[in-house]
């Protein structure tokens, strides 16, 4: 039996950011307090609702809401274990980013517009995580594209507009491919709800060509957001956006939306059985592996901090795709947990980059010399994120790479281990010099003489507290999820729950 709460809760989670967002649009620039209140009210009510649903799903309750939409395809919002993994991640990081953004944008123009679209983005992300079938997923996927565009071009400079156009060219094309894929699957098999094991096996003999084309279309389309190899080009360009946007959207929400779509497609639409018949995952695996290596090599070539982080994202998100494409339960755990862990670490790194830029106007790697003396806390957070990315225990990144490696062995694909080793070495090669410069190199100018800032009074004042605290918070989370991975409430435990349900016979 569904109670009222069980139907309303999924909608309420989407609305908890959508309504404040729409209200914020109508505010005047000067209504500073009200805007912050609305933002925080949205954030905390969403966290509360998500916590409620997490509890319910872990107890085995069903949450589902539907309204009629297209013939044979209703709009369905539902909460299952997989969707909650993503919802919980985006809600928690939305909290951190909101505070960060308030501090970051203090006194700048267009704040109502910024926070309005920002809330819309979060709503779209949560909506696509909660989507109960492909058509609903499509709706939110396209909304996410639209809502992100104003944030990329937020600064309104020529460079921003140019980057925005590149962003749109990629994501709208990707969106059209996804639309075509969804429509093709609908034509072949209708659009039932997502179901563990997929729903396409009855038509696989009849429509081999159609299903293959649909998979290629969908993976290419979703691959745009997930920054897979031939279609990753927008991500480094989009770094022109303000730091909170890069942090939440381009490290977490948007790229993960693509990766999450691929997860849904593989597990809940096609299903492992069908994909093995069609033999489609080998190509996906090779593509993901190539992206991992290529992204790392490109990261190594970058001299700007944010650009290096962006290529690192290109590389790291493909770990998820790779883990999914292996089609084994252990690799799946690795992929699902990496979705969370990579998000925590990458957002920390972007916050740090934002702090450097905001406080000391540092954008390039060569300017990082001796930064640890001036901003020790931010530099420490940066170190946590970087080491986690490399895969140093006990930080979260180690856990996911461990499971991914085990998964590669379990599915009999040992060559993937070499990809991981190579990528790990490359990670080290592009992150360790930054850490060395920050902690051990001598600053080019004495920090006291730096034009941008005086020596702070205490260590906690190295930058604005609204910039510092979210950074430390996410860094701490990255460590805690790593250390407490074995506990019942960790992302790892949740990933195991998902896999137990997805791979149940």
């Amino acid at each position, binding site marked *: 039996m569904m109670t009222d709460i069980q139907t309303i809760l999924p909608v309420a989670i989407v609305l908890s950011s959508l309504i404040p967002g729409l209200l914020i649009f109508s505010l005047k620039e000067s209504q500073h307090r009200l805007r912050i209140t609305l933002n925080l009210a949205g954030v905390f009510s969403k966290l509360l609702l998500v916590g409620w649903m997490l509890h319910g799903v872990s107890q085995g309750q069903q949450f589902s809401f539907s309204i009629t939409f297209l013939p044979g395809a209703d709009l369905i919002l539902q909460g299952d274990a997989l969707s909650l993994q993503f919802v919980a991640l985006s809600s928690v990081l939305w909290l951190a980013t909101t505070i960060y953004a308030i501090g970051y944008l203090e006194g700048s123009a267009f704040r109502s517009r910024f926070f309005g679209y920002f809330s819309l983005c979060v709503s779209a992300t949560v909506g696509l995580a909660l989507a109960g079938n492909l058509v609903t997923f499509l709706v939110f996927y396209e909304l996410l594209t639209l809502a992100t565009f*104003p944030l990329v071009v937020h600064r309104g400079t020529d460079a921003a507009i140019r980057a925005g156009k590149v962003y749109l060219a990629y994501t709208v094309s990707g969106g*059209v491919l996804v639309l075509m894929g969804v429509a093709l699957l609908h034509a072949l098999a209708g659009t039932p709800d997502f179901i563990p094991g997929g729903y396409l096996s009855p038509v696989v003999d009849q429509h081999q060509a159609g299903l293959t084309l649909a998979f290629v279309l969908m993976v290419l389309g979703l691959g745009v957001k997930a920054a897979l190899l031939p279609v990753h080009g927008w991500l480094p360009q989009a770094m022109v956006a303000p730091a909170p946007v890069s942090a939440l959207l381009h490290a977490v929400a948007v790229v993960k939306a693509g990766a999450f779509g691929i997860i849904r497609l593989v597990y809940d639409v096609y299903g492992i059985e069908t994909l093995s018949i069609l033999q489609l995952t080998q190509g996906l695996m090779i593509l993901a592996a190539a992206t991992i290596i290529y992204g790392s090599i490109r990261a190594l070539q970058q001299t700007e901090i944010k650009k290096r982080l962006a290529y690192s994202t290109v590389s790291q998100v493909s770990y998820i795709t790779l883990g999914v494409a292996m089609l084994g339960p252990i690799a799946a755990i690795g992929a699902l947990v990496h979705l969370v862990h990579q998000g925590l670490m990458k957002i920390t790194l972007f916050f740090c980059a934002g702090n450097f830029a905001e406080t000391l106007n540092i954008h390039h790697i060569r300017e990082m010399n001796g930064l640890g003396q001036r901003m020790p806390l931010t530099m420490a957070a940066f170190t946590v994120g970087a080491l986690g990315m490399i895969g140093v225990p006990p930080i979260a990144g180690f856990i996911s790479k461990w499971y991914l490696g085990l998964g590669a062995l379990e599915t009999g694909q040992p060559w993937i281990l070499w990809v991981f080793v190579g990528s790990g070495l490359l990670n080290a090669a592009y992150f360790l010099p930054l850490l060395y410069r920050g902690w051990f190199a001598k600053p080019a100018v004495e920090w006291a003489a730096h034009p941008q800032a005086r020596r702070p009074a205490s260590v906690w004042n190295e930058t604005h507290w609204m910039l510092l605290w979210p950074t430390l918070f996410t860094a701490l989370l990255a460590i805690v999820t790593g250390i407490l991975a074995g506990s019942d409430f960790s992302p790892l435990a949740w990933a195991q729950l998902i896999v137990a349900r997805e791979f149940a016979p």
Partner: protein
Amino acid sequence: MNAALVSMVVPFFAAMLVLMWRPRQQSWLVIVASIVSLLAAVMALLSVIDSGPQSLNLGGWESPLAIRFQLMPVNALLIVTTAVIHLIVVCFAASSHHCQPIKQAFWPLALLLHGSLVALWLSMDLFNWYVTLELLGLAAVALVTLAGQKALRAALDYLLLSLFASLTYLLGVVMLYGQYGTLDIALLATLTEADRVTQTALLLISAGLMLKAALWPLHLWLPAAHSSAPTPVSALLSALVVKAPLFILWLLWSRVAPSELAVPMGFWLALLGGGALLIGGWSACRTPHLKTLVAYSTVAQLGYGLLALGLLLHWQLNDLQAALWLFVVAHAMAKTSMFLAAGEIQAATGKKRLNSLRGMTLTMPVALFAFAVAGGSLIGLPPSGGFIAKWLLIQPMLIEPAYWPWALLVIIATLLSAAYVFRVVSQGFRQSSVSATASEHGKSAQWLALLPAILVWLMALFSEPLLQLMDVFSA
């Protein structure tokens, strides 16, 4: 049926009243007339849903002499759409400051246009369509001339082409009458045979209609006429007037033409639709002027209608009717929004070029938002009316691998439409060199521009009843 007649007669009557009596509060009279017409249209729609199609022989003549009006779900929907758009446009004209100078002449002509359109939707008679098309054409040209001296040349070209198209249409109609001795669509449908005379007649009629609807490659007059007209007029022309010939074309080929002629013709119509999509879209991406861009987008979007019509005929798939008419309705709403927003922006900046949009997110946020939201439906982003229509259109294309090239065409067309919509929107986000602040000026007009864009997105929520309506019809 009576409600539909009221919806038609009220605008005519109000037009006479405004012309002859010249009351002081003209705008209120016009708005009230539009509201009454809308209410009547809604009642007509409800009565069709309730009791099915209804017909009326004017003057009580029996067929085959009678001029017949028929109310079906499709034209009931079109009558409602017409009334909604007229109401919004009339309110816009009443509240927008830059429409002040044209009002005197605008009111009666707009009402005349409204009445003629409803009469056209209701008619089921080849010659009555000729008369209503002429009424429509004359009212439309007169409306274009309201923009003043600079629009006269475009108006004259529009008029001459429209008259030429009417005569081409009329020659075809006369040939059909000579062959079969009736003008009634339902009767003709039972009589027609696939002979040479019928084919020539149908082709002549189609050529005339396609010219009037600005269907590619007969579209060259449209961008000049639609972009030089006053803003509310542009909206009416692009949203409604060009759809009228499409309606006749649909009835003609799907009802009157024997399938031996309709199937091959469908292929060519679909191909022309594809051409419209590609070339119209490309031109919209190239033009430096805002309103011309919107006008070219009409050329492109009409291509969807033609594509749906062509494939409907070619594959003999009645399901595509829903796609065709949802396209028409969704485009009508979205295009109204776009033209009103574009016109309001152009009036505020005083410039026609696209780069005058700099900083519009700050100075005219609502107008730019309206443009973007309407553009979303034109691109076919979910969940909008345009998306539903596109979804219905591509479903049959995807089921057979042999039809996939058509789907590819739709992909390219979608990308082109995204390109020209975002060309405008991204300009709005560009930093303005002059520091401007949000002006209170024209606030209500901007919100009115947003209204149809919101309606077209709401269509998605009511897609189920809309589709049921279409199903009732095709059954």
